[in-house]
């Protein structure tokens, strides 16, 4: 195949790695190559679930420029590989996030920003936020901070790329394996209303009073 083309990539790490490991099996090489491409091209849907939304613009624009690592923002979850949950999740948001996550195509990854999704953060006693996100969705990378600096976010990207490249077990595999566990937790906290229901007829309530 286009080996020269692989070698001419900026860091050339793939070629070196091939030589180092001396893999004879083509299948392994292909798999490794695919993993490498996956790590070099991460489409992000940045869901501003919390304060972290404020550090997304600096990360993706010219000061920190995540695009040079192949991390690009896209608009729809269908095209995305990674969803960034930037901060605490209200119950109402969690419903949408679960739906967004399930719309993404495998392989898919989750990265959380801030201390709130880890153990409640500063909203640990709030009645409307969830405290342990990994009970409801599988987290691949957590970045702590309040808010994490763009540097920390980029550290998260680097860690994620490393994990993809090394073929470590990703969150979506855990989600598939322990689907019952996650669904049970989601049901427990969201009370069965997991998909956002659009039943409430907002307008008739309004026009019923006015028109």
């Amino acid at each position, binding site marked *: 195949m286009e080996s020269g083309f692989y070698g001419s990539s900026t860091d050339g790490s793939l070629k070196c790695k091939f030589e180092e490991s001396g893999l004879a099996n083509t299948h392994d090489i292909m798999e490794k190559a695919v993993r490498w491409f996956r790590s070099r091209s991460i489409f992000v849907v940045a869901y501003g679930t919390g304060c972290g939304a404020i550090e997304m613009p600096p990360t993706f624009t010219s000061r920190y420029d995540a695009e040079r690592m192949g991390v690009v923002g896209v608009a729809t979850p269908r095209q995305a590989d990674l969803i960034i949950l930037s901060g605490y999740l209200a119950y109402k948001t969690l419903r949408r996030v679960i739906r967004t996550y399930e719309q993404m195509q495998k392989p898919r990854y989750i990265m959380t920003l801030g201390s709130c999704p880890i153990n409640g953060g500063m909203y640990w006693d709030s009645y*409307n936020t969830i405290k*342990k996100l990994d009970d409801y969705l599988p987290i691949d990378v957590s970045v702590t901070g309040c808010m994490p600096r763009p540097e920390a976010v980029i550290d998260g990207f680097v860690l994620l790329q490393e994990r993809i490249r090394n073929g470590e077990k990703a969150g979506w595999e855990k989600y598939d394996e322990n689907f019952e566990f996650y669904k049970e937790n989601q049901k427990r906290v969201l009370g069965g209303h997991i998909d956002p229901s659009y039943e409430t007829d907002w307008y008739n309530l309004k026009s019923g009073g006015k028109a």
Partner: protein
Amino acid sequence: MDLASKLEKLSLQLVQKQDYLYSVTVGFERLESLLLSFLNEFGYITLDSINCRDDLEDGFFTITYCLQTKDRDHVVMVQTKIQRENASLPTMHTIWPQAEIMEREMHEMFGVDFPGHPTLIDFALEYWDNMPPLRRDFDTLEYVNSMNPFREQRGDALDAKEEMKKKREAKKAAKLKAQQEAEAKAALEAKNNPSDEVKNEE
């Protein structure tokens, strides 16, 4: 101030709280008419906010309407008290459109009813079936503990006060022990070579 004399005619007292802040307290039954006269006669055309304070101990809500004139150079708080049980207020959304959303929020957060309000629906919460959360008798920590587990790794945390006491006692015990030991040692030494003692005595 001009407003003060106008309010005096209605036998209400205007209190200056800060440089640009005045307040007037009114009984619930006169609230609606007073707000209307604030709007139509005194020129307070802007409703800045409506807010509710839960005075649980006394059993009522304190409702504050913050009003501004078109000069926007001071704020007048019109305050009234309503019963906590089955709280109900007249809706102002026909006079001030923005009151609709403020009242919707207050309905959700405090359970205050607004008869005639067209959209008393969810504001921020979704499928909420508990007590309105901003009431003071709603215990948010208890609610959180019933809904969400926290991480378990922190079980090894110690109570510092207990530890301090323990350490102090241990220290005391150690000191006592050391003292006893020293005494015992001294006694032992004294037994072993009494000649020294004799010498010292000399």
